[in-house]
């Protein structure tokens, strides 16, 4: 099946569109969660959605999307409040409070799930799909719900852009500006819950954490600006949603959620390695360059200083002596300096070894470098002295 006929398939188009919407909203909202050091909040909220889904099902009695999502939102919020209560009013730290809320609510969800499964009811079949996601079960009316949630989330982010930015980066400053920081924080948190709830159908409760974290972390590597980061996170989220949905559609039998998560993680890996400035490959290349520059300068200024002490600016230095002095092979460094025209090779009979001396350019370069370090005056005086 080629890509075009794939996209014209009704189900696959729905799934791809839905996964893209999910990627966009979780990327945008995840950016704020990651920057506010609340990455695992998404993990907690998604696990805590399970009892809500089950309760929604028990109350409504069928697998309609909207009641289940509402239930998920309610139980996620309850878990978040439970966690905040533990953090603020007990001596438990964030991690223990998070883990306790997560496992407690998930356990309640499991209990409710087995309760539903024990009932003789044909409609409960699709419920376990929420654990790992089952994108194929998407129907067009679901897309309308997902689309509205995405538009709503993006609208709120645009509307409160400035406020969210300040709250994210400097909460105290936001307080002094008189922003209702409590309300804004709750708004941001509940929007993460909204994104989580959206993803349940595609990615499932267990892997949804990755969709909150991965696009945002990937985007963070490429930029220092929030605007660009949020945009890139949306892009990466959409990309992993589309690619993941298509792959899982091509290879039938693969659960959509894990494939989407692996796509998002692959983008993270590429970003961590290759992003300019922050990327690990980039950073190690830069470190190498800095090492090279440092060594060349060191060697150059040593040649210059030897010239000073021997009262001969063109004092010829033997290469093996420098090897011994630095405890390493200096040939490459000499060669690099030579290619820049700062030194030239010379001989110093009767000694056989390779010798090097500074060119006028090299003297100038070394003098400027030492001057920039703050001992240039001494150098200039004595060089004139030596030259005379």
């Amino acid at each position, binding site marked *: 099946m080629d890509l075009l006929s794939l996209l014209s398939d009704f189900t696959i188009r729905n799934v791809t569109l839905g996964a893209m919407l999910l990627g966009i909203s979780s990327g945008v909202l995840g950016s704020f969660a990651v920057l506010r050091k609340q990455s695992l909040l998404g993990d907690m909220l998604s696990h805590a959605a399970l009892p809500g889904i089950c309760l929604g099902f028990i109350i409504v009695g069928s697998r309609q999307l909207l009641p289940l999502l509402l239930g998920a939102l309610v139980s996620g919020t309850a878990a978040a409040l439970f966690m905040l209560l533990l953090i603020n009013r007990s001596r438990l730290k*964030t991690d223990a409070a998070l883990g306790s809320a997560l496992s407690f609510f998930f356990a309640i969800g499991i209990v409710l799930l087995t309760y539903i499964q024990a009932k003789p009811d044909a409609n409960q079949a699709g419920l376990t799909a929420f654990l790992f996601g089952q994108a194929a079960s998407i129907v067009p009316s679901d897309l309308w719900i997902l689309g509205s949630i995405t538009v709503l989330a993006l609208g709120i982010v645009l509307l409160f852009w400035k406020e969210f930015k300040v709250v994210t980066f400097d909460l105290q400053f936001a307080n002094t500006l008189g922003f209702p920081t409590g309300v804004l924080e709750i708004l941001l948190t509940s929007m993460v819950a909204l994104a989580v709830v959206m993803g349940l159908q595609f990615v499932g409760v267990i892997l949804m954490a990755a969709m909150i974290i991965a696009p945002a972390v990937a985007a963070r590597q490429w930029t220092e600006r929030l605007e660009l980061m949020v945009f890139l996170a949306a892009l990466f989220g959409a990309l992993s949603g589309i690619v993941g949905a298509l792959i899982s559609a091509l290879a039938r039998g693969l659960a959509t959620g894990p494939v989407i998560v692996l796509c998002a993680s692959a983008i993270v890996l590429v970003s961590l390695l290759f992003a300019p400035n922050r990327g690990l490959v980039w950073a190690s290349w830069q470190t190498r360059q800095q090492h090279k520059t440092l060594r060349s300068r060191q060697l150059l200024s040593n040649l210059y200083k030897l010239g000073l002490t021997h009262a001969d600016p063109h004092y010829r230095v033997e290469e093996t002596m420098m090897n011994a002095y630095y405890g390493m092979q200096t040939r490459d460094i000499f060669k690099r300096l030579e290619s820049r025209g700062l030194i030239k090779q010379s001989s110093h009979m009767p000694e056989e070894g390779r010798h090097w001396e500074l060119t006028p350019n090299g003297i100038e370069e070394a003098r400027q470098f030492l001057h920039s370090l703050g001992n240039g005056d001494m150098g200039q005086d004595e060089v004139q002295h030596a030259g005379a």
Partner: protein
Amino acid sequence: MLVLDVQIVLVGALVGISSSLLGSFLVLRKNSMLSDAISHSILLGIILTYLLIKQTTGPFFILGAALAGVVTVYLTEFITNTKRVKNDAAIGLVFPVLFSIAVILINLYARDVHIDIDAVLFGEIGFIWLDTTRWLGLELPKSLLSMTIIALINLAFVSLFYKELKISTFDEALATALGFRPTLLFYALLTLTSVTAVTAFDAVGAILLVAFVIVPPAAAYLLTDKLWRMMAYGIVISLGSSLFGYYLAVLWDVSIAGMMAVMTGVFLILAFLLSPRYGLIAQEVIRRSQRFANEERALVVHLFNHEHSSHQNEENIVSALREHLRWSESKSRNILMRSLDNNLIVREGEILNLTLKGRAIAQEIMQPWYRPISSEG
């Protein structure tokens, strides 16, 4: 069936005990979310090891599968150490990848891998009798034996290295200075956590294990300041959760492991509310008694300030409290009643007078330098 009931409760309790012994240190080190990551990742370890050696039991299987947990911790630390990603985000990046690969492998090798996706979530503690072995002439579930061994190993680990673990947990720099290798201990702790997770997998599944690792120690932490007591309380809470969880699960016909995990949460809530020192109610009582004491102090200081002055008759009367201290009528009545009861003031007509005790309290606040030289002392 009575024996089976006891066996199931015992397995549940042993899962809780082995997990909370290790979990105590994770909670104290603020690393408890690592257990969440480990419990998800071992699914990959279990599947890979099974595909490799075609066994789902035995020490090789357990160690191989537990390796995935250790790899998770290592990768998380590695990503954190690049300083490009915060620790919590690193946790949330690593385990979904390993878990996703595991789910995909289950999809691909569904015929070979006899792992029911339900089992991943809540285990099959009710079916432990399906897999039994004979030991000393008794027919016992294998999970009971393996969990007993794991519980003993964990107990031996925390008792043998109690001192080292304690110092490494509370003062890592000191532990390093003393030559204790805290990092090695940390990895040993997490290796054992992974081994426990793999062994408990059949019984409680991957994700509910988090409840057994984090919640009993968290509840115990609200009850005591002593490390060994924290572990002991964790054991008691695990036992209680297993017992009550099993009872309720049978009563309502729901997941046994799930109900046991719910019970750990219930114990946490109870500890949070009722702990004698750190509980919500105890805190409220302390806050109330402090507020009462402050109000009584405000009253005696007010009376002391105007005692023997020309406006004593306007200030030291009941109605003045409302206007000058801005206390509502009911509030001033309550405070007056308490102060009269505590023998801080006496009433003479309209006028409120300080008793010796009340004056002493006011004097200590207003004139701390004043020491009565009287013989009564």
